[in-house]
């Protein structure tokens, strides 16, 4: 039983081992310019072979079928192969999908194969292959004018295809277009391809310039220009000759590629870089030109800001003029007259601003500055335009615009004639350090004084009223005043006897009136002495007083000397002052 089982097992294995269907590739990794051979091999005859659709590849040759059958020592072996030659169309990882075949009613499939396609590789030399001889005699070269330019410095890339005299080129197709990432590029059209003669690696070659490109690096650092790959149809000489002995040409196509180029872009120096640097690199002339400077209001004026010269003209913005707000400035019209030969952009770019002044007056357009990096001297250069003064000769006045717009033309006409006034010819110069009146002491004094006057006035009026009301007091005061008056009169009349004594007597009487408040009619010696005694006067003084009064009457008519008069006066003064003290 066990033996049967093993036998059965073995026979099954033989059946499984019998059918094989697989795909084999010549290499897993290849360059873009290399070919790949893929074989689909089976060890039994099958029908309905379906190849995969070789995505990303171009079938160069195939399918070619190959069948071999052999008997060795009575054992037969069978082998059938479908072969394809493939050319990768793109870089990257490509997958060749499954192929299928029907063998005796059973469908077999191959497993998918991953292929890595790298950039074009240089192919090793094989002397006898005609392909190799095309490699030898066909070269694509990228010529770069400068590999370490400044930012925005133009460089040129010229693609030339060199081919030796013994091959011919009939056509080409671009496979990989070069990409200029981080570059501003401008292709220079080549109208007609002309074969020229030149040297390549010291050998004589013919060459055709395929492409010319001007590049402006837009980023500093290491930038890579992706290579250009071409599929070129070539005519190669073969080893065979025709009956006339001429070499027979073989048509073939060949892939060439210019290697990737690295460009090391230098950043513009930071030292001395002005703040308003707009990125212009090259050599420029800067101009600001107004179409006119004397205009009427409402007329327009063109202000042209232009830069001409060589450099990255299309890659920077022009400075914007600064004008007073009273000038209406519209958005500029930008115009470029730039041609791009291989040496870089040259020409002129300009911004034209339409300016319409609204009101009369003088308006300055500020000086404008334009800075560029000069590649010759490797330094920043600044060009400053002069200040432009716009004179608006006629028109409404800015401040009176509301009036100017009214239909009252007469009024507007008067106002529009408002002129810039001439200087003033007369002045009164005053000191700068003038103290304020308000807040000064004088101010407070003058303000408060009238108010202070009010109580004073009230007080004085009250006092006057009081004085007016006191009749007796007033009499005393009057007598007192008269006494003093007569006494002084007496002193004056001291030479004349009669008036002296009259005055002296009056003085004495008035003194009495003032002091003891009696009338002249009441005056008698007795009454006087009585009242005076009441008032606690000294009796001696009283008698002296009475004596002197009597004496006055006598002395008026009696002869007396001037010494006696003087004595009497002194006496009177002494008595009066004495009584003044004594009387209460």
């Amino acid at each position, binding site marked *: 039983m066990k033996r049967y089982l093993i036998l059965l097992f073995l026979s099954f294995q033989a059946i499984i081992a019998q059918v094989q269907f697989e795909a084999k590739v010549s290499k897993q990794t290849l360059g873009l310019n290399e070919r790949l051979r893929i074989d689909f091999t089976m060890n039994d005859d099958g029908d309905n072979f379906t190849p995969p659709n070789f995505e990303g590849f171009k079938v160069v040759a195939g399918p070619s079928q190959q069948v071999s059958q052999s008997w060795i020592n009575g054992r037969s072996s069978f082998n059938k192969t479908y072969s394809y030659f493939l050319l990768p169309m793109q870089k990257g990882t490509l997958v060749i999908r499954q192929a299928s075949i029907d063998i005796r009613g059973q469908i077999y499939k191959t497993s998918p194969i991953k292929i890595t396609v790298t950039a074009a590789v240089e192919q090793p030399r094989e002397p006898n292959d005609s392909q190799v001889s095309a490699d030898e005699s066909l070269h694509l070269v990228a010529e770069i004018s400068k590999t370490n330019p400044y930012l925005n410095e133009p460089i040129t890339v010229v693609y030339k295809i060199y081919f030796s005299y013994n091959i011919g080129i009939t056509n080409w197709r671009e496979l990989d277009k070069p990409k200029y990432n981080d570059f501003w590029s401008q292709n220079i059209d080549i109208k007609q391809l002309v074969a020229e003669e030149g040297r390549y690696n010291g050998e004589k070659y013919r060459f055709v310039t395929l492409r010319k490109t001007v590049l402006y690096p837009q980023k500093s650092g290491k930038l890579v220009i992706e290579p250009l790959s071409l599929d070129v149809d070539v005519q190669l000489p073969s080893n065979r000759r025709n009956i006339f002995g001429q070499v027979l040409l073989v048509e073939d196509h060949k892939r060439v590629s210019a290697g990737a180029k690295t460009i090391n872009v230098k950043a513009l120096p930071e030292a001395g870089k002005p703040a308003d640097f707009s990125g212009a690199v090259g050599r420029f002339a800067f101009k600001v030109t107004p179409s006119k400077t004397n205009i009427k209001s409402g007329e327009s004026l063109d202000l042209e800001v232009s830069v001409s010269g060589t450099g990255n003209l299309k890659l920077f913005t022009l400075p914007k003029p600064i004008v007073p707000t009273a000038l209406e400035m519209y958005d500029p019209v930008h115009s470029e007259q730039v041609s791009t030969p291989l040496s870089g952009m040259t020409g002129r770019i300009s911004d034209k601003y339409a300016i319409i002044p609204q009101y009369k007056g003088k308006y300055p357009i500020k000086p404008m500055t334009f800075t560029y990096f000069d590649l010759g001297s490797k330094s920043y250069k600044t060009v400053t335009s002069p200040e432009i003064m716009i004179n608006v000769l006629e028109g409404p006045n800015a401040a009176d615009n509301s009036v100017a717009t009214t239909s009252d033309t007469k009024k507007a006409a008067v106002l529009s004639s408002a002129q810039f006034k001439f200087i003033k010819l007369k002045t*009164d110069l005053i000191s700068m350090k003038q103290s304020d009146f*308000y807040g000064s002491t004088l101010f407070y004094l003058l303000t408060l004084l009238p108010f202070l006057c009010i109580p004073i006035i009230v007080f004085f009026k009250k006092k006057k009223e009081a004085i007016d009301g006191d009749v007796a007091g007033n009499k005393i005061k009057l007598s007192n005043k008269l006494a003093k008056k007569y006494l002084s009169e007496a002193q004056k009349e001291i030479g004349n006897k009669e008036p002296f004594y009259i005055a002296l007597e009056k003085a004495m009487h008035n003194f009495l009136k003032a002091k003891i408040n009696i009338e002249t009619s009441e005056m008698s010696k007795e009454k006087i002495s009585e009242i005076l005694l009441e008032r606690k006067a000294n009796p001696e003084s009283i008698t002296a007083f009475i004596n002197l009064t009597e004496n006055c009457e006598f002395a008026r008519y009696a002869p007396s000397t001037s010494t006696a008069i003087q004595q009497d006066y002194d006496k009177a003064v002494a008595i009066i002052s004495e009584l003044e003290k004594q009387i209460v």
Partner: protein
Amino acid sequence: MKNLLYILLLTSHIFFAQKGFENGNALYQKGKYQEAITAYETELSANKQSAELYFNLGNCYYKLNKVAPSIYNYEKALLLNPDDIEIQNNLKFAQKLQIDDIKTVEKVGFNKVIQDFTNTFHYNTWGGITVGLSIVFLLFFVGYYFSEITVSKRLFFLGMFVVMLLLLVSVSSAIFEKNQFNNDQPAIVFSEVVSVKSEPKVGSSDAFMLHEGTKVYILETLDNWNKIQLTDGNEGWIENSAIKRLK
């Protein structure tokens, strides 16, 4: 004889004092504006001033197309003589030279009415009016106090109250006007272009840009920064060096 000598002395003094002004006028007439400025400024350095002097200086700067000094001097002249039509006229001409056009936002409301009223006189004039009114008050009091007729006594009494009221009004006007004068700190931007910051720091963000000749009002001062307000109500901080105060 002595009086004559005094008069002569005084007049010669005035003549001497105005020499710079006269010289400046002559130079201006000849079109030598820069020299005229130097002549006028001798008066300023002697601490003399007048509205006319500032006006003429403004004219010189205008002729030289110097925006900020021109506007500055006209504004100075207007501070001394606010109602002069010629100064206002030439200031408008000078303002056309400036880049910024800042709208004036009219103030409205009760405050504005008060301001307009107190603005009719300078605070010194208000001071004078106060003094005059207090004297009138005294006269009314005297009239009331000494008047014998009842009707006139009543009239004087009533008049006293009216005058007292007017006096209070004029005093408060003077205080208000003085306050207003002290708070009102105009300045002129002298830098060609200056960025007004949102904070008084060098690195802070720009609120807006101002060009020379623009009039600003200083609200506050911190170190060498001034908080300014424009006539349209915008506010920001500006460095001291960029502006020149009018007062």
